[in-house]
């Protein structure tokens, strides 16, 4: 890295406040400072509902920060960039389109000719193991298969930035481990920079180069941990390694406190 390198993503003191339906101002994130290097896999962990996802909507350009700067490749984010991919927590596939047509959607929106789009969509469907399902409709697939469609539909656009908002949280444990491994495979071929939001610390350590711990809401960065586990990793195996457990204990001492704060707040609200 030379001295004047530009990180893939940089957040400088970014804050985002929303108007709630009752008119009150709710701050989701405040003074967020975060740097993601090119090709780096960064996991963001924090207590449930702390505002982690908001950081992704700011980077993607779906929302603008109330104050502070969001830079992608050194440029301030204005609107949705065409190098960004986003995998959502809930199903975001088009239910009225077939699997193939879903994966073709991105290239077609971007003006790629139909034949070329179909060809590329087929390539990606083959890579996620759904080649035989291209004529199915999403409701005919399992949750894991629908997630694969979403991954193929995202990767087919060749994103340089990959934003993932608890993408596997709705899947069962086995499917989840499988999908995590597949994600690592797909990612290692593309060299995209990834921001992966999750509340699952194990998942974040197994996947990432760097784990960012967020505070209880309004979220801001509490601590950043480098994960020095060697790649390639297999999710099910890496978590048995002594170094993994060590890292886990270290990060949990930081994250656990925030989780406790969130829980206590919930308790006082309930009381």
């Amino acid at each position: 890295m030379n001295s004047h390198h530009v990180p893939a993503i940089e957040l400088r003191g970014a804050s985002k406040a929303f108007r709630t339906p009752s008119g009150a101002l709710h701050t989701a994130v405040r003074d967020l400072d975060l740097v993601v290097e090119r090709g780096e896999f960064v996991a963001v962990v924090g207590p449930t509902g702390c505002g982690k996802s908001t950081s992704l909507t700011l980077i993607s350009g779906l929302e603008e920060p109330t104050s502070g700067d969001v830079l992608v490749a050194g440029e301030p984010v204005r609107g949705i960039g065409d190098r960004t991919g986003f995998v959502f927590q809930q199903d975001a596939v088009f239910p009225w389109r077939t699997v193939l047509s879903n994966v073709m959607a991105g290239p077609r929106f971007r003006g790629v000719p139909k034949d070329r789009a179909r060809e590329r969509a087929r390539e990606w469907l083959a890579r996620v193991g759904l080649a035989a399902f291209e004529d199915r409709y999403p409701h005919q697939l399992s949750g894991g298969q629908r997630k694969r469609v979403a991954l193929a539909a995202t990767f087919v656009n060749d994103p340089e930035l990959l934003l993932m908002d608890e993408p596997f949280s709705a899947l069962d444990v086995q499917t989840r481990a499988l999908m995590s491994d597949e994600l690592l495979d797909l990612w290692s071929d593309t060299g995209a920079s990834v921001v992966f939001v999750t509340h699952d610390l194990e998942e974040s350590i197994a996947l990432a180069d760097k784990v960012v711990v967020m505070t209880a809401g309004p979220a801001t960065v509490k601590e950043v941990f480098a994960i020095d586990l060697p790649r390639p990793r297999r999710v099910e195996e890496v978590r048995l390694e002594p170094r993994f457990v060590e890292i886990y204990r270290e990060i949990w001492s930081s994250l656990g406190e925030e989780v406790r704060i969130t829980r206590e707040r919930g308790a006082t609200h309930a009381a």
Partner: protein
Amino acid sequence: MPHESVVLGAPAAVRTDRTQARARAARNRTLLVHGTRVLLLVGLLALWEGLARAAVIDPFNFSMPSKIWDQITQWAIDGTPQGSLWEQIWYTLYEALFGWIIGVIGGVVLGIALGRIRFLADVLGPYIKVLNALPRIVLAPIFLIWFGLGPASKVASAVVLVFFPVFFNAFQGAREVDRNLVANSRILGASNRQVTLQVVIPSATSWIFTSLHVSFGFALIGAIVGEYIGATKGLGLLVSASQGTFNAAGVYAAMAILAVVALLAEGLLAFLEKRLFRWKPADTSADR
């Protein structure tokens, strides 16, 4: 149950017997339902006929099924005082269909536009509410004055009846599009136009279709009421002419014909809907 046939012969045989018995019971139940249905209709008609013939109810005011049937066949064979029966049916259908198509197109386009463009919704919202609060059937006489005795006035009253339910459903449909789906398509590179055409409209179709069923009935009402108030042709005119000559059987006969026409149209819509919604799970109660 393929694995069960591998087991001993006797239980397998019992199984198939029971399967057959179950199938027979299901068939019998269907027969029973249909049979009872027909019996109920026949019973009611017979009761009506009997009471009218025995002069328990006044046959002049209440007529009787046999007279109504005679009236229908007479119309069908000899034609009505206004011309052939088929011409009357065609006129009413034409007016209803024309009004329905205009009302649906207007309702869908405006509904989607207001659902997508906040500014339009804010500006036009109150006016649409006021117009909707108006009992629109009273517009039929005004349309008669504006557009005359011809089909145009009936088409107009059908349009105003159809427009509002379709509009509100399209508007709601456009508003309730899954936000994730819209965000996802924008990330994938869709322009505003592409979001409207390829995300909002497909998601709103199930909302719109619900209103299409109801609104075709409204279109028929609009056409009939328009004809009833003043027309040169149509089933509504048949009703008002029969009423004018104290021909109760004629009123009922026109009603029966209308019911058949409405049912046929409904069947056609259901068929189209099935074709259009192939992407939906067959059973909505099944988990996804």
